[in-house]
């Protein structure tokens, strides 16, 4: 029955393809890097980006060519895909590693106890000294108020969507929460600007910024809480309801405690996301060099705006520039710690239902 034309296309020993050794990819990679460096040197190119790109192209082309010769077209394609995926990974790692490295290297220069515990006061841009105490205070207050506004609304909305929501209203809420996730932060800032500052004629204040940050935070809280509530098995709800416990008490006493770990994680990730927001703060809070502990009146400093201010005033060097990097390092550290703690909680409180 066998179709002769098909069988004939197979190589005689069909199981044993010519295979290049395992070190082949490494050898080609090393060759490509050397050749890339050589070409760059010969052509007088000095940018590391250029020789890296040349090396990457050589690597992909070289491994395809050799493999196509030895192993055949299919294997060569497979190898090309593998090399491209590796190249993509390396291409992405380089800038990201550089970002972290630069921030840490530049940031540790002036980052110390003094820097964290003093405000700028009347330190001039060109002078060393000063610190970010006022900015940390402002960021904590603004983010804190935003959290107090956003969390109840976000969690309740999620409860509505998971436990009660049926029909058109729930669909609309789900859709708009999703869309809200994508609102640019500057637009949220403009909204509070037009409502609070231009129409109600209030001045700059930390609170105005908090409201914009809350707008950015709500959808994140809703989405993560929703996901967590959906993970709670229905059997638990039914078990409680079947005992005659009212639904609202079931939610508060059974559903929420079961998912509290995940909800906390989601909230902390949301906080981490808004803590670095600059644009709305720029429009609504502005910045000051002095300590302003009252978030409801007058401009207040915050870490992102502090970085921005020091950066524009520095002209790319000097004391203000160092301070900008040190504040950036502080901000990144703060956000990373929030992230790590959030993930720790998620792991520690993970529902032990065993999937």
């Amino acid at each position, binding site marked *: *029955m*066998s*179709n002769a*034309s*098909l*069988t004939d*296309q197979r190589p005689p*020993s*069909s*199981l*044993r*393809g010519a*295979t290049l050794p395992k070190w082949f990819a490494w050898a080609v990679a090393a060759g490509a890097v050397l050749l890339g460096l050589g070409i760059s040197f010969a052509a007088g190119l000095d940018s590391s980006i250029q020789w890296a790109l040349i090396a990457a192209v050589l690597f992909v082309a070289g491994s395809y060519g050799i493999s196509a010769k030895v192993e055949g077209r*299919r294997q060569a394609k497979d190898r090309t895909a593998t090399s491209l995926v590796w190249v993509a990974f390396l291409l992405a790692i380089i800038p990201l590693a550089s970002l972290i490295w630069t921030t840490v290297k530049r940031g540790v220069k002036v980052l110390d106890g003094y820097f964290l515990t003093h405000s700028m006061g009347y330190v001039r841009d060109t002078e060393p000294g000063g610190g970010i105490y006022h900015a940390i205070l402002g960021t904590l207050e603004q983010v804190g108020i935003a959290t107090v506004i956003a969390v109840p609304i976000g969690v309740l909305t999620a409860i509505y969507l998971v436990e009660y929501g049926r029909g058109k209203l729930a669909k609309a809420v789900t859709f708009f929460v999703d869309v809200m996730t994508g609102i640019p932060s500057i637009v949220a800032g403009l909204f509070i600007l037009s409502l609070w500052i231009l129409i109600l004629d209030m001045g700059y204040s930390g609170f105005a910024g908090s409201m914009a940050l809350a707008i950015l935070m709500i959808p994140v809280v809703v989405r993560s809480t929703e996901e967590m509530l959906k993970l709670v098995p229905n059997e638990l709800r039914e078990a409680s309801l079947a005992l005659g416990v009212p639904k609202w008490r079931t939610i508060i006493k059974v559903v929420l405690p079961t998912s509290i770990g995940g909800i906390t994680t989601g909230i902390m990730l949301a906080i981490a996301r808004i803590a670095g927001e600059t644009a709305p703060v720029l429009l609504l809070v502005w910045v000051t060099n002095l300590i302003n502990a009252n978030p409801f009146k007058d401009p207040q400093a915050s870490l992102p705006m502090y970085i921005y201010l020091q950066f524009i005033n520095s002209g790319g060097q000097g004391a203000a520039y160092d301070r900008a990097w040190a504040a950036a390092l502080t901000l990144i550290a703060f956000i990373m710690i929030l992230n790590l703690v959030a993930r720790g909680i998620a792991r520690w409180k993970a529902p032990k239902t065993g999937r």
Partner: protein
Amino acid sequence: MAKRIDVSGLNAYYGSFLAIEDISMTVEPRSVTAFIGPSGCGKSTFLRTLNRMHEVTPGGRVDGKVMLDDENLYGPGIDPVAVRREVGMVFQRPNPFPTMSVYDNVAAGLRLNGRYKKSEMDDVVEKSLKGANLWNEVKDRLNKPGSGLSGGQQQRLCIARAIAVEPNVLLMDEPCSALDPISTLAIEDLIGELKERFTIVIVTHNMQQAARVSDRTAFFNLAAVGQPGKLIEIDETERIFSNPSVQATEDYISGRFG
């Protein structure tokens, strides 16, 4: 086409856990060999070592020898991709490619292996679908998605897909466990026809099915949970079901455990 499989001293691991231990057996060409045994005894794992699919599971590792006629599948320089082309497989749940049409599903394996003229391809697709007893049901909707067929039709589509590349051996991992009785019957009939052309190995939970379709039956068992699975015996199906040489086999077949 059909080739003999000769396994000797085969162990398979998941990480450091030994899942099946020291299996040796011969599978005759142009016959149906059924693997039976309680859950977790390693019969599916063993089946997947026969086309080197076991090693795609994270931590999966095999030692021992599997001879396909005169070539060791685990020998040096053997390309697992080529092995899987020679040893086709049908899975427990029908798994046609959801984004492909019926036609493209059958043609998928051939397209990997070079270019065919449209007419050649049409011929192979038609012949494979006929071979899987599916042609009459789908010939008018070859361009509809394969996932739109019924479960039994999907499974026969998967069989057509597997035989389209003309493998030497066809492995079937509980091919009927997700199907209704009528579809099961259709597949069993089909197995009877396919054994004219292929070496067939089938894992099944259903002992009546093993008795109905297979020429030889292998019984696998494990001493306890956490212990490796072992081959207890392999013999003519008739003997296994009437007069097995090991007590455990008789206990299992007569329903005393498992």
